[in-house]
C-alpha cells in the first residue's frame, strides 16, 4: 500500500507541476463562467415588458402585487380560475405573455404555477417569482402571524414555482433541470477524457522511455497501475474542486457585477441594515444556485455525481491503461484512442437524448450501459425519480462499479503482459492472449 501511495504521490506531483494542468485549472472555470454568462444573459425570449395575468380566484392578493411598480411587468388580476386550454386559446387572453395561477391552497402547499407562451429568461422568471413571493409573505404575516415581516422571512419556507409551457402544460419535467444534469454528466465525461488521456500518455511514456523496468524491479505491475490510477484520479479530483470553488466564486461575482438587477430594490435598501439575513437571500436569489437548490435535489446530485465520477473514471481509465501499456509504439496508440473518444462522445449524445426522450426504452437501456451511464443517469437524477424508481439509479451505479472492477482486472492483466513488450503491432488477438495469461 505504501508503494501504491508513493506512486500516486508522484503522479499527483507530476500533474500539479505540469503547465497544461495549471492552465486547465484556470481556463476551464473561465470558459464555464463565460458560457454561463451567455446562458444567463440570453436564455429565454427578450421583451421590454411582459404582460402578466394573475389568476387569483379567492382574491388573496387583493389585486395588488408590489407597492413599487416594476417596469418589466404589466400586471392584471382576474378573480376566476381559468384552465390551461382556455388561457392558451381564448382570444381575450392572447395579449398576456405569462400567467400566474394562485389557488386557494397556496398558503398551505406553497405551490405557484407560472405558465408562459414564449419562455422568459431566468432573470424574468426570478423577478416575477420574487414579486409573488414577497406579496404572499405580506399576506401570510398579516393573516396568520404577529411577527414582523423581517422575522417571518427568516423562518419561512420558500415557495415552489413550477414553470409550464402554456401550450404543453402536462410536460411536468423542466428541461432546465435536465440541462443541469447534462452539464454535470458532461463534466464527468470531460474529466474522464482529459485524465484518461493523461493516464494513457503517462503509461506509454514510462514504457517508451524505458523507466518501467526499473520501476517493476521494485513494485508489482498491479501496484504500479493502481498507484497511477489513484494518483491521476486524485489530480482530477483536485482539478474538479478548484473548478467548483472558482466557478462558485465567479458566479457570485457575476451576480454582483453583471446582474445587480436580479436583486429586489427593497432588498438592496434593506441590505445595509440586515447583513446576515440578506446574505442568505442573496444566495437564494442567484439564478444558478436557485436552479440547482430548488429544482434539483442538490445533496443527492452531489453524492451521485461523485459516485458516478469515481466509477466512470475507474471504468474508462482501465481502457486507457490497457491501450497505453499494450502499444508497441506511440503512433500505434493513437488509432486505438479514437474508438474510446467516439464512445465518450456517444455518452454525451446519450445524455442529450435523455433530456428530450427521458421515458423511452432506449434511454432506459443507455442508463444501464456502463459507457453511457454517467451522463444519462445524471440527467435522470436531475429530473428526479418517481417514488420507488430510485432503484434504477442504484442498479446503474452497481453495474458501472462491477464493470469498472472487471475491466480493471482485465487491464492489470494486459498491463502486466504488455508493459515490457516493444516494437510489436497491437492487434486484438494479442490483447485477448494477454488477458488469458
Amino acid at each position, binding site marked *: 500500500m505504501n*508503494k501504491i501511495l*508513493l*506512486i500516486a504521490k*508522484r503522479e499527483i506531483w*507530476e500533474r500539479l507541476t505540469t503547465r497544461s494542468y495549471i492552465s486547465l485549472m484556470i481556463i476551464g472555470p473561465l470558459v464555464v463562467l463565460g458560457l454561463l454568462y451567455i446562458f444567463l444573459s440570453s436564455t429565454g425570449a427578450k421583451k421590454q415588458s411582459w404582460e402578466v395575468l394573475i389568476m387569483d380566484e379567492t382574491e388573496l392578493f387583493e389585486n395588488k402585487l408590489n407597492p413599487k411598480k416594476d417596469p418589466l411587468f404589466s400586471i392584471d388580476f382576474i378573480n376566476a380560475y381559468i384552465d390551461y386550454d382556455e388561457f392558451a386559446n381564448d382570444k381575450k387572453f392572447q395579449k398576456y405573455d405569462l400567467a400566474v395561477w394562485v389557488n386557494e391552497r397556496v398558503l398551505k402547499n406553497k405551490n405557484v404555477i407560472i405558465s408562459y407562451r414564449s419562455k422568459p429568461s431566468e432573470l424574468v422568471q426570478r423577478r416575477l417569482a420574487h414579486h409573488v413571493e414577497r406579496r404572499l409573505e405580506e399576506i401570510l404575516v398579516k393573516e396568520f402571524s404577529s411577527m414582523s415581516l423581517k422575522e417571518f422571512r427568516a423562518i419561512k419556507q420558500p415557495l415552489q414555482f413550477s414553470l409550464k409551457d402554456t401550450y404543453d402544460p402536462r410536460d411536468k419535467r423542466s428541461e432546465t433541470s435536465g440541462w443541469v444534469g447534462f452539464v454535470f454528466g458532461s463534466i464527468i465525461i470531460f474529466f474522464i477524457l482529459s485524465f484518461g488521456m493523461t493516464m494513457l500518455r503517462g503509461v506509454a511514456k514510462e514504457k517508451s*522511455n*524505458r*523507466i518501467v*523496468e*526499473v*520501476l*517493476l*524491479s*521494485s*513494485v*508489482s505491475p498491479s501496484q504500479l497501475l493502481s498507484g497511477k490510477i489513484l494518483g491521476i484520479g486524485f489530480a482530477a479530483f483536485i482539478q474538479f474542486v478548484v473548478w467548483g470553488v472558482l466557478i462558485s466564486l465567479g458566479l457570485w461575482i457575476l451576480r454582483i457585477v453583471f446582474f445587480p438587477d436580479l436583486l429586489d430594490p427593497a432588498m438592496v435598501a434593506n441590505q445595509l441594515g440586515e447583513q446576515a439575513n440578506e446574505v442568505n437571500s442573496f444566495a437564494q436569489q442567484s439564478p444558478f444556485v436557485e436552479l440547482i437548490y430548488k429544482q434539483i435535489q442538490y445533496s443527492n446530485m452531489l453524492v451521485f455525481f461523485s459516485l458516478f465520477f469515481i466509477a466512470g473514471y475507474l471504468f474508462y481509465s482501465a481502457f486507457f491503461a490497457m491501450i497505453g501499456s499494450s502499444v508497441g509504439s506511440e503512433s500505434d496508440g493513437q488509432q486505438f484512442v479514437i474508438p474510446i473518444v467516439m464512445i465518450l462522445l456517444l455518452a454525451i449524445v446519450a445524455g442529450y437524448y435523455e433530456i428530450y426522450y427521458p421515458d423511452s426504452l432506449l434511454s432506459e437501456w443507455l442508463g444501464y450501459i456502463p459507457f453511457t451511464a454517467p451522463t444519462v443517469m445524471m440527467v435522470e437524477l436531475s429530473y428526479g425519480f418517481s417514488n420507488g424508481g430510485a432503484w434504477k439509479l442504484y442498479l446503474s451505479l452497481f453495474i458501472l462499479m462491477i464493470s469498472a472492477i472487471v475491466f480493471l482486472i482485465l487491464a492489470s492483466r494486459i498491463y502486466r503482459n504488455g508493459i*515490457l513488450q*516493444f516494437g510489436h503491432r497491437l492487434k486484438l488477438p494479442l490483447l485477448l492472449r494477454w488477458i488469458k495469461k
Partner: protein
Amino acid sequence: MLTIEEISKSYRRQKILHDINFSVKEGEILGLLGPNGAGKTSLMRIINQIIDQDRGHILFKGKVMRSADLAEIGYLPEERGLYKTMSVHRQLLYLARLRGMSKKDAKQQINFWLEKFSIEDWGKKRIEELSKGMAQKIQFIATVLHDPSLLILDEPFSGFDPVNIELIRDEIKRFKKEGRTILISTHNMNSVEAICDRAVLINQGEMLLEGSITNLRDQHKEGLYEICFEGNMISFANALWVGYEIIEKIDKGENQFCVRLKMRKENSINDLLNAVMGQVKILSVHEVLPGMDEVFVQQVQPKKEVEDE
C-alpha cells in the same frame, strides 16, 4: 547468496529458458554470458520478479525469494531510462523510497553518491537537461543507492560511454571488495575476463557451461604456445622439425619474432625449448589460453553450424 533452481520459461510455445541451474556465491562476480536472444534478460527479470517463471525456484540467502528481498537487490536493466522532467534529486529519492528506504536515509545516500561522483550541483537539474553520459551516472546511482547486497546488472556497459564504463567497472570492483555479490550479463568479454570470478554461458535457453574464468579458459585450450626469440627464423623453423606445427608468426623487427605453434605427438614445452635453445635467443615463452570470446564462440558456434546444416 542466489541459487537458480531448474528455471524454465516459455513464451508463445517457444522455450526461452530450459532447466537453468546455477548459484552465485556471496562476494563473487558471476558473468552471465550468451548471444542475443539466449534468455539472459528473461532470467534476470525472473530473478527480479518482473516476470514469472513457468517452473523452478529462485533461492535468496538459502530461502525461496520473496518480494521483500527485492529491497536487497540493485537491478540495472538493459532497457533503462528515467523520468525526463523530474529533477535528479527527486527522481533518486522516489526510486530509493520504492526500494523501501526511509526518506532520511535516502536523502543521506543521495548526497553521499552525488558527492562521490562530484556532481553535487546536479541535484536540482532535470534529467532532460543532462547529457547522456550524465544521465547514465544517475542511472547507476539509482541502482546502488539503497546499498544492495546483490547487484544484478544487465549489459551494464552497453550504451555507456568509455568514461562511464571505466567508472562502473571500478565501482563493481569496489563492491566486490566490500563483499557484495554481483551478477552481470554482458557481451563485453574483456570485462568478463577483467572482473568476473566465474561465468555461466547460456544459449537458446539452455545452459552450456559453468565455471571459474581460469578453468573455462583452461578447459578450452588447444595446446597452443607462443614463443618469442631473437635470431634467424629459418634456423628456428628447421630446429622444430616435424614435432611442431607453426600456426602464426609475427615479425617484430630487429631480428625478433613471435611464433604461435601447436605440439604434435607427445611433445612438451621442455622438448620445444631443448630443440630451439641452441639456435636462437629465447625472449619469452608461454601457453596461450583462449580468451572468453573464443570460449564463447567455440560453444555457441557448433550448435549454430549443426542448425545451419
